[in-house]
């Protein structure tokens, strides 16, 4: 059975849940041929772009489905997507005269994340590119915040997904925000806990319950293995909660989708508290994480100050904690 999925003109990060619901038509029982209609494509933020790529890969590589596309080659949307290498990752060869990569712009192409990815090198490359038009201490602190977030997200994808991920990041002057999206076609949050034989995994536990675990400090799927000799896990279960809290502290957004569970925090709105994971009403086959932060949030305070405040807020560090007097630091 075949199906045609028509995508909308615009998908911002906040529409990722709607996009997943739309794409779930390709997961319907009996569907083996999918046509993705991209002809309306105009403006897609990083998270939606990565969700589409990871979903198409899952359909093709893991489920053996035939996926075709309808697209235009002469619209602003297609030019934009081509420059990001979106079509290249879908296997579409445009053969267009457009210059795909303009080194003067502060954007990056979509990247593939697998077990060989060097998160430090990629984190620095992307973050330094995105702050090209900034200067002084604000540029340095923004770059450090970006590469911290990227380093933690890439590491999560590599360690837990057991699949392949797509990463994209960009600065949007229209809303003054940096947006990062990463989506994989892996085993999902629940699958990671189960396959890692985590004592926190309970057979029959819902995806919502396991997402609560993943967002809890010191509750990673491999935290129980950090003392194992020989196969010691480096994981303390701090990265994802830290990323979420950093976006909250910088008036940004945090989104995560896994299975039929999701969280979407829009900290740009007044009095928004981190939401408890909920059911989406559709299922995402992997993990997709989107985050953003307001560029102006960094600069008035340093990354060092932001980090310390967030650690204190999460209970990872006491406000008066200081061991400098013990002489542990040499100049």
């Amino acid at each position, binding site marked *: 059975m075949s199906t045609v999925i028509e995508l909308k003109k615009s998908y911002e990060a906040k529409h990722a849940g709607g996009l997943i619901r739309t794409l779930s038509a390709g997961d319907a029982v009996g569907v083996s041929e999918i046509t993705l209609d991209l002809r309306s494509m105009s403006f897609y933020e990083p998270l939606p772009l990565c969700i589409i790529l990871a979903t198409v890969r899952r359909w093709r590589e893991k489920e053996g489905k035939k996926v075709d596309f309808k697209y235009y080659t002469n619209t602003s949307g297609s030019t934009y997507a081509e420059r990001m290498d979106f079509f290249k990752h879908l296997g579409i060869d445009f053969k267009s005269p457009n210059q795909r990569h303009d080194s003067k712009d502060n954007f990056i192409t979509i990247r593939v994340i697998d077990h060989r990815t060097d998160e430090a090198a990629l984190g620095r490359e992307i973050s330094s590119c995105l702050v090209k038009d900034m200067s002084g201490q604000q540029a340095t602190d923004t770059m450090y915040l970006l590469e911290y977030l990227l380093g933690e997200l890439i*590491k999560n994808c590599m360690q837990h997904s057991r699949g392949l991920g797509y990463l994209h990041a960009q600065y949007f002057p229209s809303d003054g925000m940096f947006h990062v999206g990463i989506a994989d076609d892996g085993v999902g949050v629940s699958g990671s806990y189960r396959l890692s034989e985590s004592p926190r995994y309970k057979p029959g536990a819902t995806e919502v319950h396991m997402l609560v675990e993943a967002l809890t400090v010191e509750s990673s799927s491999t935290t129980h293995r*950090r003392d194992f000799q020989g196969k010691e896990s*480096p994981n303390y279960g701090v990265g994802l909660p830290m990323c979420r809290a950093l976006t909250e502290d910088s008036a940004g957004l945090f989104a995560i989708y896994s299975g039929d569970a999701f969280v979407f925090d829009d900290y740009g709105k007044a009095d928004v508290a981190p939401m408890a994971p909920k059911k989406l009403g559709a299922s995402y086959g992997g993990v997709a994480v989107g985050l953003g932060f307001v560029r102006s949030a960094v600069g008035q305070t340093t990354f060092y100050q932001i980090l310390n405040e967030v650690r204190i807020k999460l209970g990872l*560090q*006491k406000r008066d904690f200081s*061991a400098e007097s013990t002489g*542990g*630091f040499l100049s």
Partner: protein
Amino acid sequence: MNVTTTIKLRDHFATPFLADGNAAVLFRRTHVEPVMDRGDNVILDLEGVENMTDSFSNACFSQLFVKHQGSFGTRLKFKACTPLIKGFVLSALSMSERKEN
């Protein structure tokens, strides 16, 4: 007499941004713990290290503080840290104490 070994992390990892938790575990187990296990001193020189993740600092330093309690400031010292890097080290120390509590 105790011997002091100084290790420059910028040279070892060949990057100013330390993010790889697995590499941190390997480094700790192969370069730092053997020295401390035989009773010698270690200075971790962080000159040139600009940034890291909590995943790296916890994997590298927290477990070290757990295994060698009381060593911070005596047999284990950190050199040339920026305020940001000092914060990562102190956070890892705090994490190791959380674990013990």
